[in-house]
């Protein structure tokens, strides 16, 4: 049977994964998420060896994962991990439940409560969409005037998720954050993502350099990975000025073009290895 690779776009990461599969002679089918049609209950026998999910939309990813699992497929990452990692509130709940150091986080579900919650956090505070990525719509709020204006603007956005308020203390970090790639129970590589801007995301222009996998980093990345259910994950961390490491988020369909540019680690090949070994263990 073939391995299904669910995609939205063929980015560098998908090209590298396809190349790794082809080098090994692994039959695969690229399944565009725009082509998915599932007739519920029609098919009881798994059609694919397994499913590697590279869908870019969180919403589509959640449902596609559930649909494939319902037809007996093992999906990497599984739906519970996708659901937790794709929602920053659920991620933070999982991390705090596991006692993992994270920035102080407050959630409010009404505009008035959000302003009060920011006041309680203190300034500057960071407001993030609960669902979203690439550093989009992140706001650093420096005073009450800005808080009130931002919250008013968020009320005018169409999606109801913008009126659930995910708020964090601002971390006065060095000009970088850290991304650790974890595959199963092994952190395989880490990079610093550097930027003059407080948002240190490669989608926002941050550059990457190799980061040593220290014992502390390995331990924290593994704990964060386990807290959200484990799998193939990118754990993002910040450093306080004291050096304390804080986990900010865990990504379930990680991009690794920045890491590929900064290290010799062949993440795509390792993803294929992890995928095949996981499917083999489950068979």
């Amino acid at each position, binding site marked *: 049977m073939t391995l299904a690779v669910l*995609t*939205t*776009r*063929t*980015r560098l990461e*998908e*090209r590298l994964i*396809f190349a790794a599969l082809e080098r090994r002679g692994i039959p695969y089918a*690229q399944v*565009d998420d725009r082509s998915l049609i599932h007739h519920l209950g029609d098919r009881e026998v798994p059609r694919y060896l397994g499913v590697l999910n590279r869908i*870019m*939309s*969180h*919403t589509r990813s959640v449902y596609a994962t559930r649909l494939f699992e319902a037809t007996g497929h093992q999906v990497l990452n599984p739906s519970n991990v996708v659901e937790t990692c*794709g929602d920053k509130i659920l991620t933070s709940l999982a991390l705090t439940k596991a006692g993992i150091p994270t920035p102080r986080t407050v959630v409010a579900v009404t505009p008035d409560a959000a302003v009060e919650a920011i006041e309680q956090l203190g300034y500057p505070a960071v407001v993030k969409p609960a*669902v*979203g*990525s*690439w550093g*989009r719509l992140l706001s650093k709020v420096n005073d009450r005037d800005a808080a009130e204006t931002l919250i008013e603007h968020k009320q005018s956005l169409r*999606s109801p998720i913008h009126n659930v308020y995910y708020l964090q203390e601002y971390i006065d970090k060095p000009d970088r954050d850290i991304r650790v790639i974890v595959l199963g129970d092994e952190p395989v590589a880490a990079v610093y993502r550097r930027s003059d801007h407080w948002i240190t995301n490669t989608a926002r222009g941050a550059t990457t350099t190799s980061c040593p996998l220290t014992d502390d980093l390995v331990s924290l990345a593994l704990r964060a990975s386990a807290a959200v259910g484990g799998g193939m994950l*990118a754990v993002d961390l910040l450093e306080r000025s004291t050096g304390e490491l804080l986990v900010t988020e865990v*990504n*379930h*369909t*990680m*991009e690794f073009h920045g890491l590929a540019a900064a290290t010799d680690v062949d993440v795509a090949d390792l993803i294929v290895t992890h995928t095949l070994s996981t499917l083999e263990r489950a068979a």
Partner: protein
Amino acid sequence: MTVALSTCPDCTEAVPAAGDVRVASITVCPGCQAELEVISIDPVEYALAPDIEEDFGE
């Protein structure tokens, strides 16, 4: 290596494609900077790329 050439559906500028181009990959039109999606590879054809949606990410 550039081996294929098709045109931008928006401005008709010729858009080169790499030899290992794949369906659903994204390129930028050198003429109008529009994001284009590769919709076929034999021959290479482009369509305007779908917008990035609000919940896109990793």
